[in-house]
């Protein structure tokens, strides 16, 4: 078990004491990242590279540690964020946003087949949701939603659109709020829709 306070103190010392602490921190990060990130996103993963980047970032940011959590948790949080971002970037590197653009632009089409039960209720809800997607969402929101529903992470979308994850999250969240409030405005609660479509959706191909 690593003594978090001791590790932090020794990292701020000098000479061999600090060198030993860096080796200890490196080992801790290596064990954590190797276990946690291996095979995540179905990719081969070199923990060594990520740990090196994380070590540099942690050592450069030591003065920003405020002691509001354990030092080891703070350090591992930095390392995980670096590792996850790198993995997501690699996972999405061959995907272009243009691949989500069809002849109909970034239109999102939803459908339900006629042979399913509760046809009237479901068809009505689908029609209302489709109307909201078409009229209330911006083209940017449809593009982000489309990519997200196709499996891209907000990190990946941010990379591909030259923005940041925070902005993409907000873009998608605002779209969700618009759809939810739009449905309520049309007399349908989101729970009604969820209940009606819990099972028996038709595979749209």
């Amino acid at each position, binding site marked *: 078990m690593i003594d978090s306070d001791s590790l932090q103190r020794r990292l701020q010392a000098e000479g061999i004491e600090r060198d030993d602490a860096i080796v200890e921190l490196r080992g801790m990060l290596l064990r*954590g990242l190797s*276990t946690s990130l291996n095979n995540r996103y179905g990719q081969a993963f070199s923990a060594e590279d990520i740990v090196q980047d994380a070590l540099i970032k942690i050592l450069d940011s030591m003065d920003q540690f405020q002691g*509001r959590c354990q030092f080891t*948790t*703070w350090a591992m*949080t930095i390392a*995980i964020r670096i590792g996850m971002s790198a993995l997501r970037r690699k996972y999405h590197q061959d995907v272009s946003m243009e691949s989500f653009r069809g002849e109909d632009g970034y239109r999102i089409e939803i459908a339900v087949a006629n042979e399913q039960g509760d046809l009237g209720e479901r068809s009505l809800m689908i029609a209302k949701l489709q109307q909201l997607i078409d009229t209330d969402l911006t083209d940017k929101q449809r593009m982000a939603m489309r990519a997200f529903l*196709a499996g891209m992470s907000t990190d990946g979308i941010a990379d591909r659109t030259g923005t940041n994850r925070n902005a993409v999250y907000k873009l998608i969240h605002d779209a969700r709020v618009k759809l939810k409030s739009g449905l309520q405005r049309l007399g349908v609660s989101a729970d009604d829709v969820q209940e009606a479509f819990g099972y028996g*959706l038709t595979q749209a191909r």
Partner: protein
Amino acid sequence: MRLSQQQLSELIEMVAATRSDSMGCDDCAQLLDRFVDQSHSEHEPIRDIEEVKRHLEQCKCCQDELQALLTAIDASEFA
């Protein structure tokens, strides 16, 4: 793009689960370490804990990072 059954289900789940969220990913990332350590009584509790929880419920990227972080901390404790 015509949504598959799974994508339509995901869209409906997303819309149904939407709640107001004043927190972004950057703010969440700033608090994630404290969120993980909140059970340690010697550390100051997070005032915005409900906001962090609400963001985590709605943001898959941050959820994934939390899970990865918890797994990494568990694994790192065995030297």
